[in-house]
């Protein structure tokens, strides 16, 4: 009797020990990653997250999140919800400046083939997208606004416009429209007077701005429904809308290139594994696979060199050399320095 009890207790302990060991082993090879949901994360999941996890023999759990402010709230409150997040370069840079992110270890993560400027201390670049001026081909035919100067010219191109409800990439567009050469845009913007100049340019067409959009889904819908005749917005969304039958086109001369990458919140439990996983995700074959789902181009130049993408598809990517040559690259340093000030000034302009 007594013997039986001891035996069953020891059996129980053995099983409990096994379960616990299993649990620990499980936690060791499980990562949690968050991104933006929708068509974008679908592409990431099928093209990058899951294939890379499979290659490393680990489990990756996905979720969506609300942006860098979620990372901040998580880190500050000591919660532990995810190990890696997908974020725009500018937001990642300001998160780094706030001290809420882990520095990335580029001896583990290989960025030797990355396009210039497409990785930073806290963010490993994964895909490149562009802010462009899209126009309705029903309204303008083939002779739509091809440059930012056209976008801001309401005489030559009458019609309603939409711009973003926050500062991201809008001031650059305004200055380019005001005739500032591409290589001097951030020089001019490096003072409140420069920001004011850009805002004045937007003020000059404000009566023609029918909508201030807040999301990619929204500006795609505005074009699809013909609610506005032209809008600023992300190229991939317009391409998807076009495949859905929207009468929309854009010219790469209006492109402002920006990039998205992966970062690690400060104090992430599985930091070392997260670092290795990011290294894996930087491989060109994953980026090529991702670009099949949405027209956001690879940061790794090997994708083009190794011919991993069909030529026709490659030509649709913002980062294709043919397209990239016309475009301004968004400066993450400028956003780290000026984002809050410029945002308040932008809101002031919007509410006037």
């Amino acid at each position, binding site marked *: 009797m007594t013997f039986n009890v001891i035996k069953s207790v020891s059996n129980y302990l053995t099983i409990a020990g096994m379960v616990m060991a299993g649990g620990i082993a499980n936690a060791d090879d499980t990562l949690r990653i968050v991104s933006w949901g929708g068509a974008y994360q679908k592409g990431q999941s099928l093209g990058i997250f899951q294939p890379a996890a499979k290659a490393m023999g680990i489990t990756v759990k996905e979720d969506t999140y609300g942006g860098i402010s979620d990372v901040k709230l998580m880190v500050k409150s000591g919660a532990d919800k995810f190990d890696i997040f997908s974020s725009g370069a500018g937001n990642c840079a300001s998160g780094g400046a706030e001290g809420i992110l882990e520095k990335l270890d580029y001896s583990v993560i290989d960025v030797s083939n990355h396009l210039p400027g497409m990785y930073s201390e806290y963010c490993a670049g994964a895909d490149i997208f562009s802010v462009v001026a899209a126009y309705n081909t029903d309204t303008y035919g083939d002779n739509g606004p091809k440059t930012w100067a056209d976008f801001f010219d309401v005489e030559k191109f009458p019609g309603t416009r939409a711009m973003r409800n926050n500062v991201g990439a809008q001031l650059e567009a305004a200055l380019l429209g005001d005739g500032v050469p591409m290589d001097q845009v951030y020089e001019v913007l490096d003072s409140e007077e420069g920001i004011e100049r850009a805002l004045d340019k937007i003020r000059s067409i404000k009566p023609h701005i029918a909508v*201030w959009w807040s999301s990619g889904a929204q500006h795609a819908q505005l074009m699809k429904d013909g609610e506005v005749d032209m809008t600023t917005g992300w190229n991939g969304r317009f391409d998807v809308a076009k495949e859905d039958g929207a009468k929309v086109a854009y010219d790469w001369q209006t492109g402002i290139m920006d990039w998205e990458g992966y970062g690690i919140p400060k104090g992430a439990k599985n930091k070392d594994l997260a670092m290795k996983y990011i290294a894996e995700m930087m491989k060109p074959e994953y980026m090529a696979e991702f670009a099949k789902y949405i027209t956001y181009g690879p940061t790794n130049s090997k994708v083009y060199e190794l011919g991993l993408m069909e030529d026709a598809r490659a030509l649709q990517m913002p980062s294709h050399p043919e397209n990239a040559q016309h475009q301004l690259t968004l400066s993450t340093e400028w956003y780290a320095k000026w984002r809050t000030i410029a945002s308040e000034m932008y809101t002031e302009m919007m509410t006037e």
Partner: protein
Amino acid sequence: MSGIIAEKLNEQGLQRVASKERLTFFGLTLPYLLIVVALIIIPVGWLFYLSFIGRDGSFSFENYERMTKSRAYIRIFITTFKISILTTLICAVIGYPLSYFMSQLSRKWANICMIGVLIPFWTSLLVRTYAWLVLLQKKGLLNNIAIDIGLISEPIKFVHNTTGTLIGMVHIMLPFLILPLYANMRSIDRDCLKAASSLGATPTRAFWTVFFPLSVPGLLAGLLIVFVLCLGFYVTPAILGGGRVIMAAMKISSNIELYFSWGAASALGVVLLIVTSVILFIASKLVSMDQLGNRSAK
């Protein structure tokens, strides 16, 4: 002598019963008090405290100073109150006659009308807001029909502006006005009106001197609910305002993203709370709240 002692004892006994009764009542309200303290007083107090914490974590007024630097904040507050007041007034103008009409119907027909009020009330706010967008946009149903039958030649801008915001908000807020108002009107004694008529009042006079004053408590309760709910509105102005109508709740949300701190957002909430309290205080001086309370209780 013994009579006095007996009286004293009796008094003590009565006091014991009374205090026991008070304790019972306190016990009954305790769960509610706990919920209020735990879910409202403590979090609001905490946010109030955070609004005085600066970026470096020390005591600071920077979250409030920011509001004085940019004119956007004052404009956003003006927009918030303008939209809320307009919505409340439009709700009153539409809701009062409707409630009156319903209160004059037989129970059966009034209930059928009530279903008409309640069905939109039970539909998701987001669904209704997007439905308005589909109906009212430039190439939406309404504009297309109006152009097809030759009523207008250019589409009318119904959405992505103040008009659209008001349409959406009035639609959502109307039941909040109608429900208390209708309940109040139902409880008004019809004999009062008959008495007025028998004393020679015309129907119009009877309405204004008897019915309307008796319906004021319900009207005020409805107006108050609508106004306060409007102040915190987010989804409807964000979608139907097209970025041209920025209300306080939207700025609170964008400040969290911009400054990565609760303080920057809660300072706005504190200002909104104070301004609202001041407005309601002034309103309560103009229209006695006591009166409102007493009549509602009746």
